[in-house]
């Protein structure tokens, strides 16, 4: 079974991510936990909600507001990074946590690498599917790059001078 980083540890993972192309090639949604594109979710919202093991993946340009009414029914929101340099997903995750108070899993998909993990976790991601050609054990170290932070984040919104 594939491994991911979740809540600071390496764990086995059963979620299957289907993009629009993969979905089009299938007759019906497969059994088991599955991550679908936003458009698919919006088209089949009611039936998917009933399943309880369907999550939505946001692409760059698809903002969390599109899921504002659905978050209570979603176990996970995934955010796709087609390229790690596209930083929109950082603001999306932060919004999910602070504006919408989303408590479920936020998962980073795509070009997800060790050297971005520290920032990603601070804005609200708690699960990371590390790019398959990289060593997930090495990537885990990226969560611990710093012990000091100046600004607040989703875990502790207080800036450093308010933490004492």
């Amino acid at each position, binding site marked *: 079974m594939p491994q991911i980083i979740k809540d600071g540890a390496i764990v086995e993972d059963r979620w299957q991510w289907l993009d629009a192309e993969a979905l089009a090639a299938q007759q019906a949604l497969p059994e088991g936990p599955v991550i679908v594109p936003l458009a698919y979710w919006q088209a089949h919202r009611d039936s998917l909600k009933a399943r309880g093991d369907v999550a939505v993946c946001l692409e*760059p340009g698809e*903002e969390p507001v599109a899921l504002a009414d659905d978050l209570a029914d979603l176990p996970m929101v995934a955010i796709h990074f087609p390229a*790690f*340099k*596209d*930083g*929109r997903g*950082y*603001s*999306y995750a*932060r919004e999910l946590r*602070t*504006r919408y108070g989303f408590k479920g899993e936020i998962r980073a998909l795509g070009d997800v*690498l060790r*050297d*971005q993990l*520290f*920032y*990603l976790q*601070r*804005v609200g991601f708690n699960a990371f599917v590390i790019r398959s050609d990289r060593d997930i054990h*090495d990537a885990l170290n990226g969560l611990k*790059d*710093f*012990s*000091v*932070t*100046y*600004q*607040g*984040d989703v875990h502790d*919104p*207080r*800036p*450093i*001078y*308010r933490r004492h």
Partner: protein
Amino acid sequence: MYVYRPHDKQLLNERVAQFRDQTRRFLDGQLSNDEFLPLRLQNGLYIQRYAPMLRVSVPYGMLSSTQLRMLGRIAREWDKGYAHVSTRQNIQYNWPDLEDVPDILAALAEVEMHAIQTSGNCIRNVTTDEFAGINAAEIEDPRPWCEIIRQWATFNPEFAYLPRKFKIAVNAVPDADPALIGVHDIGVQIVHRDGETGFQVLAGGGLGRTPMVGEVIGDFVPWPHLLSYLEAILRVYNKYGNRDNKYKARIKILVKALGAEKFRALTEAEFAELKDGPMTLTAEEVDVMRGHFSEPAYDPSLTNRPAALEQALASNKAFNRWFHTNVTAHRQPGYAAVTLTLKKTGRAPGDLTDEEFDAVADLADQFSFAEARTTHQQNIVLGDVRQDQLFPLWEKLDALGFATPNLKLLTDMIACPGGDFCSLANAKSIPIAEAIQRHFDDMDYLHDLGPIDVNISGCMNACGHHHIGHIGILGVDKKGREYYQITLGGRGDKVSKIGEKLGPSFDADQVVPVIARLVDLYVEQRKPGELFIDTYERLGIEPFKERAYATDH
């Protein structure tokens, strides 16, 4: 200046360790070029024409003598014995080896310095007036606010992968723009209203390919909300800035495309959510920051124009001339600010050797409370010199070659490193600067001409601020040959203003004659006491255009 607390030091040490490991993984082949690129850029490391270039952050231009000595040591041990003051008040090394950079960063960390976010698509070094804290015209010291912004921006997790670089400047002087806030991604103007500090916040200014002056987005942001407001703007930009075309990715393009009103509405919506939240500044923290920039131990018994100064001014003509160009008034009676122009003919503007770093450090210790400042005009300022010590200081500066009395005059040019060093450049800048200096070598004539800002960039990216020079020179490439386009009427003084193109570009060997013709026209047409820029604004571009392209001159 800001004195590091244990957690600041800890953060720097962790950064050095992180970058050491990233460099090792890159050299081992575990990180691809593309993956290493933004990591090294966010540590100020470019791969340039001949070697890497390392840009060291000098927050809002403040340096201690200890830091100056370390900068000199780094130039000596890891570079070719010199470094360069950039137009964003930073220090650049042109010849370090990639393998050495972690050690250089460790050395910098020893003196509370770093290269964090001096490049890359993130929030860059915060800049301000080089006379911050000593300028009689400012309404308060901008540096505590700069430091507050610096800490918010440092490793801000949400804004490390922006569409493009992001530059913030702070100005505390009313009716003038010494920090060039009009041409920054965000410009923060400190204002007082009903006795309370607040900020007028501009967004969408910038130079580069599409130069423009920023729009007022927040008219009065009360001080506790400064960071919440900045965060709101950054979030709008991070979400909606163009990521498909790097030439359309700066915030100025977004502000222009949406219009200021729409951009303001988006910002206000984000701000409404952040306002009064945990980012709200406390009076206590602002006081702590202000405490870092408390006055040095000025002697309160001193007065302006002491006898020793008057005597020297009366008896030494060269000192007198230098005093009138390179010495700036100070808000503390009996003190003055001294600018060392780093514009020796035959040397790249803004360059300092390792020995000169040491010499400046010694002078700072002896004459200016062990501090110095870098300027966006690529000079160095000793900010707190006793007026009765100006003459002995001048004698030492003169011996070192730093007493050229040309501050703000035609030969005090801004120039980027250009095609001699930079791989982005279309043309060379340094030889053009040198040719101008060689031609205009008559100090009497230069003083007669008065202040003229000549700014030179080797490409559209405008590191040499050519758009805001009274005379701007831009290197362009046409079919493999270097040409120079001239703009007139730009300003980076009282206001920030983008210059106008004169017309078709010139051959390298035509630049000096053309500038001489433009200057001649000014001399012919000026009214008594009128500066070059004022004559230009009165006459408009046409007569200058006619003269520049005239062949019978």
